């Protein structure tokens, strides 16, 4: 009974925030709701006796991906100004219909199949030690591959998001982090300041 109540609570939490993440107007709210939904999923993993996965989910999704999304939202803020711009795409009704169709297509077989209405076997745990051993023996190649993939993704992300030199001259850029911004240039020295137009005059025919 207790288990069922916790399941329904977490499931409703997750679903509500997932819907909020997809439907709120303000993008920052969407991102934060998504983080809450991810955290709810982590709780569901805990209920399913997979604490390691739950913590990993929390660490990666809430600690990293949500933050990334928030940063991306702030870095692309210029796009959403203007009160009357609609957030939904023009044919959103069709999209919603397809989404409902997909839900039906998945949920129908689940609900109609009797073999899925089963109760959990009493004990199934994923101890950290076992996971570590499996990662180092049976899954060592996938692990290495994931390492390479993450490195490649990191380098790729840096290269893609790198500001090209020609876009903005170096030193002039004001990032969100450095509040004092680009430093002003030194004041003109008396010699050059005294006759600012002489040089121009010489070059003119």
């Amino acid at each position: 009974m207790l288990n069922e109540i916790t399941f329904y609570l977490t499931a409703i939490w997750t679903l509500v925030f997932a819907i909020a993440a997809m439907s709120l107007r303000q993008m920052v709210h969407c991102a934060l709701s998504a983080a809450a939904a991810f955290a709810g999923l982590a709780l569901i993993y805990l209920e399913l006796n997979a604490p390691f996965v739950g913590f990993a989910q929390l660490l990666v999704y809430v600690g990293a991906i949500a933050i990334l999304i928030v940063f991306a939202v702030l870095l692309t803020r210029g796009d959403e100004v203007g009160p009357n711009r609609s957030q939904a795409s023009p044919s959103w009704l069709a999209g919603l219909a397809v989404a409902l169709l997909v839900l039906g297509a998945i949920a129908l077989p689940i609900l109609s199949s009797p073999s899925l209405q089963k109760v959990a076997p009493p004990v199934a745990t994923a101890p950290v030690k076992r996971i570590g051993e499996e990662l180092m023996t049976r899954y060592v190649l996938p692990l290495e591959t994931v390492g390479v993939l993450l490195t490649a993704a990191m380098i790729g992300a840096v290269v893609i998001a790198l500001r090209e030199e020609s876009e903005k001259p170096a030193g002039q850029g004001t990032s969100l982090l450095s509040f004092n911004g680009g430093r002003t240039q030194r004041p003109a020295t008396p010699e050059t300041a005294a006759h600012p137009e002489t040089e121009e005059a010489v070059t003119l025919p």
Partner: protein
Amino acid sequence: MNPLLSHYLVLSALLFSVGFAGAVTRRSAIIALIGLELMLNAANLNFIAFWRYGSNPQALTGVMFVLFSIAMAAAEAAVGLALVISIYRQRKTIRLDNLDSLKG
């Protein structure tokens, strides 16, 4: 009374559809990415549920799959958001219906 396997599967289906609906209907590329992440999470939930309710939980296959899937999701989010930022720099917009120059 404990929840049945189908409870988790239905929850996963709902999450998947919500993510799908968001990815299809919202204009912002970032929201679409969040939708994709939700869909991925729904799939992960399926794996964990089947592992927990499956016949051979000692093999840890579902857990392993989800761990790798989470790592993949991290990579995907990093690259995807970098692309979004890069696109924003080029086009000053991340609205998906404005980004349709690749067409027949």
